[in-house]
Protein backbone atom coordinates (compact mmCIF):
# COMPACT_ATOMS: atom_id res chain seq x y z
CA UNK A 1 0.00 0.00 0.00
CA UNK A 2 2.89 2.34 0.73
CA UNK A 3 4.18 1.73 -2.75
CA UNK A 4 0.75 2.57 -4.18
CA UNK A 5 0.63 5.82 -2.19
CA UNK A 6 4.12 6.69 -3.26
CA UNK A 7 3.18 6.24 -6.90
CA UNK A 8 -0.01 8.28 -6.45
CA UNK A 9 1.73 11.22 -4.86
CA UNK A 10 4.60 11.05 -7.31
CA UNK A 11 2.21 11.25 -10.26
CA UNK A 12 0.32 14.13 -8.63
CA UNK A 13 3.52 16.02 -7.88
CA UNK A 14 4.74 15.46 -11.42
CA UNK A 15 1.49 16.75 -12.88
CA UNK A 16 1.60 19.85 -10.70
CA UNK A 17 5.24 20.49 -11.55
CA UNK A 18 4.49 20.16 -15.25
CA UNK A 19 1.58 22.58 -15.07
CA UNK A 20 3.44 25.24 -13.13
CA UNK A 21 6.77 24.83 -14.79
CA UNK A 22 5.96 24.54 -18.45
CA UNK A 23 4.60 28.03 -18.95
CA UNK A 24 1.18 26.45 -19.18
CA UNK A 25 0.78 26.86 -22.90
CA UNK A 26 0.17 23.39 -24.20
CA UNK A 27 -2.53 24.55 -26.59
CA UNK A 28 -3.33 27.95 -28.02
CA UNK A 29 -6.34 29.53 -26.33
CA UNK A 30 -7.14 32.01 -29.10
CA UNK A 31 -7.13 31.98 -32.84
CA UNK A 32 -4.15 33.57 -34.55
CA UNK A 33 -4.65 37.29 -34.99
CA UNK A 34 -4.63 36.90 -38.77
CA UNK A 35 -6.04 33.85 -40.43
CA UNK A 36 -3.56 32.16 -42.76
CA UNK A 37 -4.15 32.80 -46.42
CA UNK A 38 -6.10 30.13 -48.20
CA UNK A 39 -3.76 28.04 -50.28
CA UNK A 40 -4.36 25.46 -52.91
CA UNK A 41 -2.67 22.13 -53.02
CA UNK A 42 -2.96 20.53 -56.42
CA UNK A 43 -3.22 17.06 -54.96
CA UNK A 44 -5.32 17.75 -51.89
CA UNK A 45 -7.46 20.51 -53.38
CA UNK A 46 -8.28 23.79 -51.64
CA UNK A 47 -7.67 23.81 -47.92
CA UNK A 48 -10.77 24.51 -45.84
CA UNK A 49 -11.11 28.02 -44.48
CA UNK A 50 -10.24 28.37 -40.81
CA UNK A 51 -13.17 27.94 -38.46
CA UNK A 52 -15.04 31.08 -37.53
CA UNK A 53 -14.26 32.36 -34.07
CA UNK A 54 -17.26 31.85 -31.81
CA UNK A 55 -19.04 34.91 -30.45
CA UNK A 56 -19.75 35.50 -26.79
CA UNK A 57 -23.42 34.72 -27.40
CA UNK A 58 -22.57 31.39 -29.02
CA UNK A 59 -20.15 30.50 -26.24
CA UNK A 60 -22.84 31.38 -23.71
CA UNK A 61 -25.24 28.96 -25.39
CA UNK A 62 -22.58 26.26 -25.60
CA UNK A 63 -21.28 26.46 -22.05
CA UNK A 64 -24.15 27.72 -19.93
CA UNK A 65 -27.37 26.32 -21.36
CA UNK A 66 -26.15 22.74 -21.13
CA UNK A 67 -26.53 22.75 -17.35
CA UNK A 68 -29.24 25.26 -16.57
CA UNK A 69 -32.01 27.26 -18.25
CA UNK A 70 -30.97 30.52 -19.80
CA UNK A 71 -30.30 33.43 -17.46
CA UNK A 72 -30.94 36.81 -19.01
CA UNK A 73 -28.23 39.44 -19.17
CA UNK A 74 -30.50 42.00 -17.57
CA UNK A 75 -30.85 39.92 -14.40
CA UNK A 76 -27.61 41.23 -12.94
CA UNK A 77 -25.37 44.26 -13.14
CA UNK A 78 -22.03 44.23 -14.98
CA UNK A 79 -20.18 43.96 -11.66
CA UNK A 80 -22.34 41.05 -10.53
CA UNK A 81 -21.84 39.29 -13.86
CA UNK A 82 -18.11 39.54 -13.32
CA UNK A 83 -18.50 37.71 -10.02
CA UNK A 84 -20.93 35.14 -11.38
CA UNK A 85 -18.85 34.32 -14.46
CA UNK A 86 -15.79 33.92 -12.25
CA UNK A 87 -17.81 31.52 -10.10
CA UNK A 88 -18.98 29.55 -13.13
CA UNK A 89 -15.54 29.55 -14.72
CA UNK A 90 -14.28 27.65 -11.68
CA UNK A 91 -17.33 25.48 -11.16
CA UNK A 92 -17.84 24.43 -14.76
CA UNK A 93 -14.19 24.54 -15.85
CA UNK A 94 -14.80 27.05 -18.63
CA UNK A 95 -11.62 28.02 -20.50
CA UNK A 96 -10.40 31.52 -19.63
CA UNK A 97 -10.75 33.05 -23.10
CA UNK A 98 -14.27 31.69 -23.44
CA UNK A 99 -15.26 32.98 -20.00
CA UNK A 100 -14.01 36.44 -20.95
CA UNK A 101 -16.04 36.44 -24.18
CA UNK A 102 -19.14 35.29 -22.30
CA UNK A 103 -18.64 37.99 -19.67
CA UNK A 104 -18.32 40.68 -22.32
CA UNK A 105 -21.52 39.47 -23.99
CA UNK A 106 -23.46 39.50 -20.72
CA UNK A 107 -22.13 42.88 -19.59
CA UNK A 108 -23.16 44.53 -22.86
CA UNK A 109 -26.84 44.02 -22.03
CA UNK A 110 -26.57 43.87 -18.24
CA UNK A 111 -29.10 45.50 -15.97
CA UNK A 112 -28.42 48.61 -13.94
Amino acid sequence: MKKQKLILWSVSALAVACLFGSGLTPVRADAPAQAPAQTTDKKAGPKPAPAKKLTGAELYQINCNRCHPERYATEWTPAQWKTLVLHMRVRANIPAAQAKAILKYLQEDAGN
Partner: protein
Amino acid sequence: MKIHSLILGAATTGCATGLAFAPHASAAVSDEDFNSLKSMVQQLNDSVQSLKQEHNQDQQTIQQLREQLGQTQTLATNAVQTAQAAQAQANKPPSGPFATHNFSMVGDAEVQYGKVDGSHSAFALADFAPIFLYRANDNILFEAGFDVMLQNTGPGSGQHASGSSTSIGLSFAQLDYIYNDYVTIVAGDMLLPLGTYNERSAGWLTKIPDAPLLDDQILPSSGIGAQLRGAIPVGQSGESLTYAVYGANGPSSMDGSGNAGQLDLGGNVGINDNGSSDNLHSHPSGGGRIGWFYPWKPHYDLELGISGQTGEWDDAGNHLWSAAVLDAALHIGPNFEAKGEYANTWYGTSDSGTIHPHGLWVQAAYKLAGLNLDFPVVNNLELVGRFDNLNDGLGAKTDRYTLGYIYYFTNTLLFEGDYEILHSSDPGQNHNDFVLQLSYGF
Protein backbone atom coordinates in the same frame (compact mmCIF):
# COMPACT_ATOMS: atom_id res chain seq x y z
CA MET B 1 -57.64 58.73 -132.72
CA LYS B 2 -58.49 62.37 -133.26
CA ILE B 3 -61.79 61.83 -131.58
CA HIS B 4 -60.08 60.39 -128.52
CA SER B 5 -57.69 63.35 -128.36
CA LEU B 6 -60.57 65.74 -128.66
CA ILE B 7 -62.48 64.09 -125.84
CA LEU B 8 -59.42 64.01 -123.60
CA GLY B 9 -58.64 67.69 -124.25
CA ALA B 10 -62.22 68.69 -123.49
CA ALA B 11 -62.17 66.77 -120.19
CA THR B 12 -58.89 68.34 -119.13
CA THR B 13 -60.13 71.79 -119.94
CA GLY B 14 -63.26 71.14 -117.95
CA CYS B 15 -61.36 70.04 -114.89
CA ALA B 16 -59.04 73.00 -115.05
CA THR B 17 -61.97 75.35 -115.37
CA GLY B 18 -63.69 73.68 -112.45
CA LEU B 19 -60.68 74.03 -110.27
CA ALA B 20 -60.08 77.58 -111.25
CA PHE B 21 -63.61 78.65 -110.57
CA ALA B 22 -64.43 76.63 -107.47
CA PRO B 23 -67.04 78.34 -105.24
CA HIS B 24 -65.45 80.31 -102.20
CA ALA B 25 -66.93 80.17 -98.69
CA SER B 26 -67.40 83.64 -97.67
CA ALA B 27 -67.81 84.60 -93.91
CA ALA B 28 -68.61 88.10 -93.09
CA VAL B 29 -67.63 89.05 -89.37
CA SER B 30 -69.41 91.93 -87.83
CA ASP B 31 -67.66 94.48 -85.58
CA GLU B 32 -69.82 93.39 -82.72
CA ASP B 33 -68.72 89.81 -83.05
CA PHE B 34 -65.13 90.86 -83.46
CA ASN B 35 -65.20 92.99 -80.30
CA SER B 36 -66.92 90.25 -78.42
CA LEU B 37 -64.28 87.83 -79.52
CA LYS B 38 -61.53 90.25 -78.63
CA SER B 39 -63.00 90.73 -75.20
CA MET B 40 -63.13 87.01 -74.71
CA VAL B 41 -59.49 86.63 -75.72
CA GLN B 42 -58.62 89.42 -73.33
CA GLN B 43 -60.40 87.65 -70.50
CA LEU B 44 -58.63 84.43 -71.30
CA ASN B 45 -55.34 86.26 -71.29
CA ASP B 46 -56.15 87.72 -67.88
CA SER B 47 -57.06 84.27 -66.60
CA VAL B 48 -53.79 82.84 -67.86
CA GLN B 49 -51.86 85.63 -66.21
CA SER B 50 -53.71 85.00 -62.95
CA LEU B 51 -53.01 81.30 -63.13
CA LYS B 52 -49.36 82.01 -63.84
CA GLN B 53 -49.22 84.17 -60.77
CA GLU B 54 -50.89 81.52 -58.65
CA HIS B 55 -48.52 78.91 -60.06
CA ASN B 56 -45.54 81.02 -59.09
CA GLN B 57 -46.94 81.44 -55.60
CA ASP B 58 -47.51 77.68 -55.37
CA GLN B 59 -43.96 77.04 -56.49
CA GLN B 60 -42.71 79.34 -53.77
CA THR B 61 -44.89 77.58 -51.18
CA ILE B 62 -43.65 74.16 -52.33
CA GLN B 63 -40.08 75.36 -52.09
CA GLN B 64 -40.69 76.63 -48.57
CA LEU B 65 -42.32 73.32 -47.61
CA ARG B 66 -39.38 71.44 -49.06
CA GLU B 67 -36.99 73.50 -47.02
CA GLN B 68 -39.08 72.93 -43.89
CA LEU B 69 -39.21 69.18 -44.61
CA GLY B 70 -35.46 69.11 -44.98
CA GLN B 71 -35.07 70.90 -41.66
CA THR B 72 -37.53 68.47 -40.04
CA GLN B 73 -35.65 65.49 -41.44
CA THR B 74 -32.39 66.90 -40.15
CA LEU B 75 -33.95 67.41 -36.75
CA ALA B 76 -35.37 63.87 -36.78
CA THR B 77 -32.02 62.41 -37.81
CA ASN B 78 -30.29 64.34 -35.08
CA ALA B 79 -32.89 63.17 -32.58
CA VAL B 80 -32.40 59.54 -33.61
CA GLN B 81 -28.64 59.90 -33.38
CA THR B 82 -28.97 61.55 -29.99
CA ALA B 83 -31.27 58.76 -28.79
CA GLN B 84 -28.91 56.09 -30.10
CA ALA B 85 -25.98 57.76 -28.44
CA ALA B 86 -27.95 58.00 -25.18
CA GLN B 87 -28.91 54.33 -25.46
CA ALA B 88 -25.33 53.33 -26.14
CA GLN B 89 -24.22 55.42 -23.20
CA ALA B 90 -26.85 53.82 -21.00
CA ASN B 91 -25.77 50.32 -22.05
CA LYS B 92 -22.13 51.01 -21.77
CA PRO B 93 -20.46 49.68 -18.66
CA PRO B 94 -19.21 52.37 -16.37
CA SER B 95 -16.21 54.01 -17.97
CA GLY B 96 -14.05 53.60 -14.89
CA PRO B 97 -12.82 50.29 -13.61
CA PHE B 98 -15.27 48.10 -11.75
CA ALA B 99 -15.02 48.11 -8.01
CA THR B 100 -12.50 45.52 -6.97
CA HIS B 101 -14.81 43.92 -4.46
CA ASN B 102 -18.25 42.55 -5.13
CA PHE B 103 -20.63 40.51 -3.06
CA SER B 104 -23.37 38.54 -4.76
CA MET B 105 -25.76 35.83 -3.78
CA VAL B 106 -27.15 33.08 -5.98
CA GLY B 107 -28.67 29.73 -5.10
CA ASP B 108 -31.99 27.97 -5.06
CA ALA B 109 -35.01 27.27 -2.91
CA GLU B 110 -37.37 24.32 -2.92
CA VAL B 111 -40.67 23.31 -1.43
CA GLN B 112 -41.65 19.65 -1.66
CA TYR B 113 -44.91 17.84 -1.27
CA GLY B 114 -44.73 14.09 -1.38
CA LYS B 115 -45.90 10.70 -0.27
CA VAL B 116 -43.89 7.64 0.58
CA ASP B 117 -45.56 4.25 0.94
CA GLY B 118 -46.56 3.75 4.55
CA SER B 119 -46.71 7.41 5.44
CA HIS B 120 -49.17 10.25 4.96
CA SER B 121 -48.66 12.64 2.12
CA ALA B 122 -47.38 15.96 3.37
CA PHE B 123 -45.29 18.97 2.63
CA ALA B 124 -41.99 17.27 3.14
CA LEU B 125 -39.35 19.88 2.62
CA ALA B 126 -38.69 23.59 2.76
CA ASP B 127 -35.16 24.23 1.66
CA PHE B 128 -33.23 27.45 1.15
CA ALA B 129 -29.81 26.95 -0.39
CA PRO B 130 -27.98 30.23 -0.89
CA ILE B 131 -24.50 30.49 -2.36
CA PHE B 132 -22.59 33.52 -1.18
CA LEU B 133 -19.98 34.82 -3.59
CA TYR B 134 -17.37 37.34 -2.56
CA ARG B 135 -15.03 38.53 -5.31
CA ALA B 136 -11.97 40.17 -3.86
CA ASN B 137 -10.47 41.01 -7.25
CA ASP B 138 -10.23 39.59 -10.76
CA ASN B 139 -8.48 36.47 -9.50
CA ILE B 140 -9.83 35.73 -6.05
CA LEU B 141 -13.29 34.45 -5.22
CA PHE B 142 -14.65 33.05 -2.00
CA GLU B 143 -17.80 31.00 -2.31
CA ALA B 144 -19.87 29.22 0.29
CA GLY B 145 -23.07 27.24 -0.13
CA PHE B 146 -25.53 26.42 2.63
CA ASP B 147 -28.62 24.27 3.00
CA VAL B 148 -31.11 25.73 5.41
CA MET B 149 -34.02 23.39 6.11
CA LEU B 150 -36.99 23.29 8.40
CA GLN B 151 -37.72 20.00 10.16
CA ASN B 152 -39.66 18.48 13.02
CA THR B 153 -37.91 18.67 16.34
CA GLY B 154 -36.61 15.42 17.72
CA PRO B 155 -36.74 11.87 16.32
CA GLY B 156 -39.04 11.06 13.46
CA SER B 157 -40.47 7.83 14.77
CA GLY B 158 -44.00 9.12 15.05
CA GLN B 159 -43.29 11.18 18.14
CA HIS B 160 -41.29 14.32 18.47
CA ALA B 161 -40.78 17.28 20.73
CA SER B 162 -42.98 20.29 20.24
CA GLY B 163 -42.25 22.79 17.54
CA SER B 164 -39.82 22.62 14.71
CA SER B 165 -36.17 23.27 14.28
CA THR B 166 -33.98 24.58 11.54
CA SER B 167 -30.95 22.74 10.26
CA ILE B 168 -28.13 24.57 8.57
CA GLY B 169 -25.67 22.54 6.55
CA LEU B 170 -22.50 23.79 4.95
CA SER B 171 -22.47 22.32 1.46
CA PHE B 172 -19.15 23.84 0.53
CA ALA B 173 -16.92 26.75 1.43
CA GLN B 174 -13.93 27.29 -0.78
CA LEU B 175 -11.43 29.92 -1.81
CA ASP B 176 -10.66 30.09 -5.52
CA TYR B 177 -7.49 31.71 -6.79
CA ILE B 178 -7.14 32.10 -10.55
CA TYR B 179 -3.42 31.47 -10.92
CA ASN B 180 -3.46 31.87 -14.69
CA ASP B 181 -5.62 30.99 -17.70
CA TYR B 182 -5.09 27.29 -17.13
CA VAL B 183 -4.77 26.77 -13.39
CA THR B 184 -7.14 27.67 -10.58
CA ILE B 185 -6.14 26.87 -7.01
CA VAL B 186 -9.03 25.86 -4.79
CA ALA B 187 -8.87 25.29 -1.05
CA GLY B 188 -11.44 24.63 1.63
CA ASP B 189 -14.49 22.44 1.85
CA MET B 190 -14.77 21.56 -1.82
CA LEU B 191 -17.45 19.87 -3.84
CA LEU B 192 -15.55 16.85 -5.11
CA PRO B 193 -15.36 16.33 -8.86
CA LEU B 194 -16.27 12.65 -8.67
CA GLY B 195 -18.53 12.54 -11.70
CA THR B 196 -20.44 15.73 -12.38
CA TYR B 197 -23.57 15.39 -10.23
CA ASN B 198 -21.84 16.69 -7.10
CA GLU B 199 -21.01 20.00 -8.72
CA ARG B 200 -24.30 20.39 -10.61
CA SER B 201 -26.82 19.26 -8.04
CA ALA B 202 -28.71 22.46 -7.27
CA GLY B 203 -32.42 21.75 -6.98
CA TRP B 204 -33.39 23.69 -10.09
CA LEU B 205 -30.77 21.96 -12.27
CA THR B 206 -31.29 18.27 -11.68
CA LYS B 207 -34.76 17.85 -13.28
CA ILE B 208 -35.66 15.20 -10.67
CA PRO B 209 -36.05 16.22 -7.01
CA ASP B 210 -34.42 13.12 -5.52
CA ALA B 211 -30.71 12.60 -6.05
CA PRO B 212 -29.44 9.39 -7.65
CA LEU B 213 -28.97 6.58 -5.16
CA LEU B 214 -25.21 6.53 -5.52
CA ASP B 215 -24.93 10.21 -4.63
CA ASP B 216 -23.93 10.54 -0.95
CA GLN B 217 -24.44 6.80 -0.39
CA ILE B 218 -21.32 5.47 -2.02
CA LEU B 219 -19.62 8.71 -3.08
CA PRO B 220 -18.67 11.66 -0.88
CA SER B 221 -20.11 14.98 -2.02
CA SER B 222 -17.49 17.26 -0.51
CA GLY B 223 -14.13 17.07 1.16
CA ILE B 224 -11.75 19.38 2.95
CA GLY B 225 -8.53 19.91 1.11
CA ALA B 226 -6.92 21.66 -1.83
CA GLN B 227 -7.37 21.34 -5.55
CA LEU B 228 -5.92 22.44 -8.86
CA ARG B 229 -8.35 22.68 -11.74
CA GLY B 230 -8.74 24.30 -15.10
CA ALA B 231 -9.54 23.93 -18.75
CA ILE B 232 -7.53 23.90 -21.92
CA PRO B 233 -9.36 25.03 -25.07
CA VAL B 234 -8.96 22.92 -28.16
CA GLY B 235 -9.64 24.37 -31.58
CA GLN B 236 -12.20 27.04 -32.31
CA SER B 237 -15.50 25.22 -31.80
CA GLY B 238 -15.60 25.60 -28.04
CA GLU B 239 -14.05 22.19 -27.44
CA SER B 240 -11.99 21.83 -24.28
CA LEU B 241 -10.13 19.43 -22.06
CA THR B 242 -10.77 19.89 -18.37
CA TYR B 243 -8.95 18.60 -15.35
CA ALA B 244 -9.08 18.63 -11.57
CA VAL B 245 -6.50 17.22 -9.17
CA TYR B 246 -7.07 17.35 -5.46
CA GLY B 247 -6.04 16.13 -2.06
CA ALA B 248 -8.69 15.88 0.66
CA ASN B 249 -9.04 14.39 4.11
CA GLY B 250 -11.17 11.67 2.57
CA PRO B 251 -13.48 9.19 4.27
CA SER B 252 -13.13 8.13 7.87
CA SER B 253 -14.42 5.48 10.23
CA MET B 254 -17.33 6.24 12.55
CA ASP B 255 -15.97 4.19 15.41
CA GLY B 256 -12.34 4.37 14.39
CA SER B 257 -12.19 0.72 13.43
CA GLY B 258 -11.79 -0.67 9.97
CA ASN B 259 -14.93 -2.77 10.19
CA ALA B 260 -17.45 -2.89 7.38
CA GLY B 261 -20.42 -0.65 8.02
CA GLN B 262 -18.28 1.94 9.80
CA LEU B 263 -17.32 3.82 6.64
CA ASP B 264 -18.08 7.54 6.95
CA LEU B 265 -17.67 9.15 3.54
CA GLY B 266 -17.79 12.76 4.64
CA GLY B 267 -16.83 12.70 8.27
CA ASN B 268 -13.15 13.48 8.33
CA VAL B 269 -13.05 17.25 8.65
CA GLY B 270 -10.03 17.48 10.92
CA ILE B 271 -11.79 19.09 13.86
CA ASN B 272 -14.22 17.74 16.43
CA ASP B 273 -17.50 19.31 17.47
CA ASN B 274 -15.96 20.17 20.85
CA GLY B 275 -13.40 22.31 19.06
CA SER B 276 -10.43 20.00 19.43
CA SER B 277 -8.31 19.20 16.42
CA ASP B 278 -8.32 15.56 15.56
CA ASN B 279 -7.57 14.34 12.13
CA LEU B 280 -8.94 10.84 12.12
CA HIS B 281 -6.14 9.28 10.14
CA SER B 282 -2.76 10.37 9.04
CA HIS B 283 -2.92 10.55 5.28
CA PRO B 284 -5.22 12.47 2.98
CA SER B 285 -6.85 10.97 -0.08
CA GLY B 286 -5.92 11.94 -3.60
CA GLY B 287 -8.24 12.21 -6.55
CA GLY B 288 -9.10 13.98 -9.74
CA ARG B 289 -11.12 14.12 -12.90
CA ILE B 290 -10.27 14.49 -16.57
CA GLY B 291 -13.03 15.57 -18.92
CA TRP B 292 -13.50 16.16 -22.61
CA PHE B 293 -16.18 18.57 -23.75
CA TYR B 294 -16.98 18.57 -27.46
CA PRO B 295 -19.66 20.92 -28.77
CA TRP B 296 -20.12 20.80 -32.52
CA LYS B 297 -22.56 23.72 -32.47
CA PRO B 298 -24.62 25.53 -29.82
CA HIS B 299 -26.94 23.10 -28.00
CA TYR B 300 -25.23 20.09 -29.58
CA ASP B 301 -22.47 18.67 -27.41
CA LEU B 302 -20.97 15.63 -25.79
CA GLU B 303 -19.10 15.54 -22.50
CA LEU B 304 -17.18 12.54 -21.22
CA GLY B 305 -15.30 12.30 -17.96
CA ILE B 306 -13.38 9.88 -15.84
CA SER B 307 -12.64 10.53 -12.20
CA GLY B 308 -11.43 8.76 -9.12
CA GLN B 309 -10.18 9.00 -5.59
CA THR B 310 -8.18 6.79 -3.27
CA GLY B 311 -6.87 7.02 0.29
CA GLU B 312 -6.96 5.61 3.79
CA TRP B 313 -10.23 5.61 5.67
CA ASP B 314 -9.74 3.82 9.01
CA ASP B 315 -7.97 5.44 11.94
CA ALA B 316 -5.08 2.98 11.85
CA GLY B 317 -4.50 3.65 8.17
CA ASN B 318 -4.67 -0.02 7.33
CA HIS B 319 -7.34 0.13 4.65
CA LEU B 320 -7.92 2.09 1.48
CA TRP B 321 -11.17 3.47 0.16
CA SER B 322 -11.11 3.95 -3.62
CA ALA B 323 -13.59 5.04 -6.27
CA ALA B 324 -13.69 5.26 -10.05
CA VAL B 325 -16.47 7.15 -11.82
CA LEU B 326 -17.39 7.47 -15.49
CA ASP B 327 -19.72 10.28 -16.51
CA ALA B 328 -21.28 11.29 -19.81
CA ALA B 329 -23.70 13.95 -21.01
CA LEU B 330 -25.20 14.45 -24.45
CA HIS B 331 -27.30 17.28 -25.86
CA ILE B 332 -28.92 17.02 -29.26
CA GLY B 333 -30.60 20.33 -29.89
CA PRO B 334 -32.03 22.61 -27.23
CA ASN B 335 -34.71 20.07 -26.27
CA PHE B 336 -33.01 16.72 -25.73
CA GLU B 337 -30.58 15.76 -23.02
CA ALA B 338 -29.18 12.42 -21.87
CA LYS B 339 -26.65 11.92 -19.12
CA GLY B 340 -25.50 9.44 -16.57
CA GLU B 341 -22.78 8.16 -14.30
CA TYR B 342 -21.33 4.83 -13.32
CA ALA B 343 -19.49 4.60 -10.00
CA ASN B 344 -17.43 1.69 -8.81
CA THR B 345 -15.98 1.85 -5.30
CA TRP B 346 -14.11 -0.60 -3.11
CA TYR B 347 -12.65 -0.52 0.35
CA GLY B 348 -10.78 -2.90 2.57
CA THR B 349 -12.19 -3.84 5.96
CA SER B 350 -10.89 -5.61 9.04
CA ASP B 351 -13.84 -7.98 9.35
CA SER B 352 -15.30 -8.57 5.88
CA GLY B 353 -12.49 -8.34 3.38
CA THR B 354 -12.92 -5.99 0.46
CA ILE B 355 -16.38 -4.42 0.08
CA HIS B 356 -17.45 -3.44 -3.40
CA PRO B 357 -20.31 -0.88 -3.55
CA HIS B 358 -21.26 0.28 -7.01
CA GLY B 359 -24.10 1.86 -8.88
CA LEU B 360 -25.20 3.88 -11.88
CA TRP B 361 -27.82 6.29 -13.10
CA VAL B 362 -28.96 7.24 -16.58
CA GLN B 363 -31.40 10.04 -17.26
CA ALA B 364 -33.04 11.41 -20.38
CA ALA B 365 -35.20 14.48 -20.78
CA TYR B 366 -37.13 16.05 -23.65
CA LYS B 367 -38.70 19.50 -23.85
CA LEU B 368 -42.03 19.34 -25.63
CA ALA B 369 -41.31 22.70 -27.22
CA GLY B 370 -39.39 20.61 -29.73
CA LEU B 371 -42.71 19.31 -31.11
CA ASN B 372 -43.55 22.84 -32.31
CA LEU B 373 -47.11 22.60 -31.03
CA ASP B 374 -48.84 25.91 -30.60
CA PHE B 375 -49.90 25.27 -27.00
CA PRO B 376 -48.26 27.40 -24.33
CA VAL B 377 -48.72 24.83 -21.56
CA VAL B 378 -47.26 22.02 -23.62
CA ASN B 379 -44.39 24.18 -24.80
CA ASN B 380 -43.37 24.81 -21.19
CA LEU B 381 -43.25 21.11 -20.29
CA GLU B 382 -40.24 18.85 -20.17
CA LEU B 383 -40.57 15.11 -19.64
CA VAL B 384 -37.83 13.23 -17.81
CA GLY B 385 -37.07 9.64 -16.96
CA ARG B 386 -34.30 8.05 -14.96
CA PHE B 387 -33.09 4.62 -13.98
CA ASP B 388 -30.65 4.25 -11.15
CA ASN B 389 -29.42 1.37 -9.08
CA LEU B 390 -27.15 0.70 -6.17
CA ASN B 391 -25.38 -2.28 -4.75
CA ASP B 392 -24.04 -1.36 -1.33
CA GLY B 393 -21.59 -4.26 -1.29
CA LEU B 394 -23.11 -5.53 1.93
CA GLY B 395 -25.94 -7.49 0.34
CA ALA B 396 -28.54 -4.82 -0.48
CA LYS B 397 -29.41 -4.18 -4.12
CA THR B 398 -31.80 -1.46 -5.19
CA ASP B 399 -33.27 -0.54 -8.55
CA ARG B 400 -35.32 2.60 -9.00
CA TYR B 401 -37.38 3.81 -11.95
CA THR B 402 -38.45 7.45 -12.02
CA LEU B 403 -40.77 9.23 -14.43
CA GLY B 404 -41.49 12.90 -14.12
CA TYR B 405 -42.03 16.28 -15.63
CA ILE B 406 -40.86 19.83 -15.26
CA TYR B 407 -43.16 22.76 -15.95
CA TYR B 408 -41.27 25.99 -16.51
CA PHE B 409 -43.26 28.95 -15.18
CA THR B 410 -40.23 31.07 -16.01
CA ASN B 411 -36.62 30.33 -16.79
CA THR B 412 -35.91 29.88 -13.08
CA LEU B 413 -39.26 28.96 -11.50
CA LEU B 414 -39.99 25.29 -12.04
CA PHE B 415 -42.78 22.99 -10.93
CA GLU B 416 -41.52 19.42 -10.94
CA GLY B 417 -43.27 16.17 -10.26
CA ASP B 418 -42.19 12.57 -10.40
CA TYR B 419 -43.27 9.06 -9.55
CA GLU B 420 -40.65 6.64 -8.30
CA ILE B 421 -40.84 2.85 -8.26
CA LEU B 422 -38.21 1.32 -6.03
CA HIS B 423 -37.35 -2.38 -6.02
CA SER B 424 -35.01 -3.67 -3.37
CA SER B 425 -33.47 -7.06 -2.68
CA ASP B 426 -35.11 -6.60 0.71
CA PRO B 427 -38.86 -6.80 -0.05
CA GLY B 428 -39.57 -4.71 3.02
CA GLN B 429 -37.79 -1.81 1.40
CA ASN B 430 -39.90 -1.80 -1.77
CA HIS B 431 -42.00 1.30 -2.12
CA ASN B 432 -43.48 3.72 -4.60
CA ASP B 433 -43.29 7.45 -3.98
CA PHE B 434 -44.49 10.59 -5.61
CA VAL B 435 -42.88 13.97 -5.16
CA LEU B 436 -44.01 17.42 -6.21
CA GLN B 437 -41.50 20.20 -5.96
CA LEU B 438 -41.51 23.92 -6.61
CA SER B 439 -37.97 25.04 -7.37
CA TYR B 440 -36.59 28.49 -7.78
CA GLY B 441 -33.10 29.32 -8.91
CA PHE B 442 -31.81 32.76 -8.08
